[in-house]
Structure formats: structure tokens, C-alpha cells
């Protein structure tokens, strides 16, 4: 094999093979400076502070297998009566391996009626996505989901 880089065909075959074996993924371009699980944890810490983060009440809907990381449909819904004294104040979504851990912050109120937000997001790699809801009483609830992405977003070459 001349040169340092494997041929496109070889790369394709390797990719196809590993994908078939492990349901794995490949990155179009390897870029450093991705967010790390540590950055995810510190982003979450910044939000919740010392308060306990409990699992439950939040439902995070993302397809578990995503072909194109550039537009991934996402819906977050939170179980809440959404009354004047018991409602969801905000919903925050984080990721593990994009260049930065933040995806979006959504601020709701007692008149929202239903605590549900949908949008479309970018995922640069197969990774964990975390949604956290802050309730009107100040408590934090979370849900997370592992998503497999076959075509990465954010860091590709133009």
C-alpha cells in the first residue's frame, strides 16, 4: 500500500466490517477537542450544583440508531401536573462527545400546560445524551439515552 493513508475502498470495507460486527460507527474526520464525559459531568454540576440529581420523571426520545448526526429528532417530556405550584421550570439537554457538552436549555412555566419540547439536534459521535428537568420546587430529575450515530456532525470538512 503506497502512502500513509489506506485507500477509500479499504477504509470502506473496514468500516463496513466493523459496523457489521459491532454495530459500530466511524468518524468522517478525526478532530481533537471533543467534549469528554468529564466535561459532561462538570456541565451538569454547573446546573444542579450540590442538589441531588434523581433519575425519573423525564422521558428522552431519540432514535437509538441514527444514520445522519446532522439532524436527529429529539423530544423531551416530563411528568408533571403543570399547575401553578407544581410545574417544570426548565429542561436542559447535554451530550457526552460533541465539541461542547451543551445542546439546549428550554424555559417553561406554569402556563405551559404540558412539559414537552421537541427539536432537532446534532451528534458528532455515538454517545450518551442526558436531559435534566428542574421542577418548581428546585428538584432535578434526569433521563439519559445512548445513541449510535453512523454519520457524524459538527466536525466534518467542508
Amino acid at each position: 500500500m503506497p502512502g500513509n493513508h489506506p485507500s477509500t475502498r479499504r477504509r470502506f470495507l473496514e468500516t463496513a466490517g466493523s459496523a457489521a460486527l459491532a454495530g459500530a460507527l466511524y468518524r468522517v474526520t478525526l478532530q481533537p477537542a471533543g467534549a469528554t464525559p468529564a466535561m459532561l459531568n462538570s456541565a451538569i454540576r454547573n446546573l444542579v450544583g450540590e442538589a441531588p440529581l434523581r433519575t425519573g420523571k423525564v422521558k428522552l426520545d431519540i432514535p437509538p440508531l441514527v444514520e445522519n448526526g446532522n439532524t436527529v429528532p429529539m423530544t423531551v417530556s416530563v411528568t408533571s401536573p403543570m399547575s401553578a405550584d407544581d410545574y417544570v421550570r426548565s429542561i436542559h439537554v447535554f451530550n457526552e462527545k460533541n465539541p461542547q457538552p451543551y445542546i439546549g436549555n428550554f424555559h417553561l412555566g406554569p402556563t405551559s400546560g404540558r412539559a414537552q419540547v421537541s427539536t432537532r439536534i446534532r451528534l458528532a459521535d455515538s454517545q450518551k445524551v442526558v436531559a435534566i428537568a428542574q421542577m418548581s420546587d428546585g428538584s432535578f430529575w434526569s433521563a439519559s439515552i445512548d445513541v449510535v450515530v453512523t454519520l457524524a456532525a459538527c466536525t466534518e470538512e467542508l
Partner: protein
Amino acid sequence: MASALINVPKRAKRGDVIEIRALTSHIMEPGYRRTAAGEVVPRDIITSFTCRYNGREIFRAELFPAISANPYLSFFTTVSESGKFEFEWIGDNGFSQTASAAITVE
């Protein structure tokens, strides 16, 4: 040229919970991509979206580069009176866009 699509029901009953969907055209350049020459393409995203109902803020979102191009948002609100929803997008490089939709509440 930027443009926005808003989906709000024209009429609703008092106390109904309605879904609002908002889509605007925007490149949402994340600021991490490189050209073939290796230069970073500067970030150009929408950073904030606000929805007001008769002047009162009912929903606000802070957006990051991880939001897809042409950002789409769907959310809910309880309607209490006829009036107007106003939408505002604010972003990098002085980007600002507004849209509005009227609703009749019976």
C-alpha cells in the same frame, strides 16, 4: 434570506393546551468545521428563541451549536384569551428575526 414558519392553531377553547411549532431558516454554523485549507469556519448560530403571548414570555430557549441547521422547536402552552403570539430569534453577527401569529380563544 431568512424566513420563519410558525404553526399555531387559529382557534382554541379557553383552557386548551395547544402545541406551537416554529421553524426558521438559518445555517447554524457550529464553528468547529474546517475548510479544506484547514481554517476554522467561524461560528454563526441562533443563540436565543423567545415566545411571548400577549406580551408575556411563555417559552424561551437557549440554543447551542448542537442544534441542527434551520432550528425547529415545538412546545406547548395553555391559552386563556384571544391574542397574539410573538416569536423572536436572536443570533450571532447581529441576527434578529421576529414573527407573530394570532389565535382566537372562545
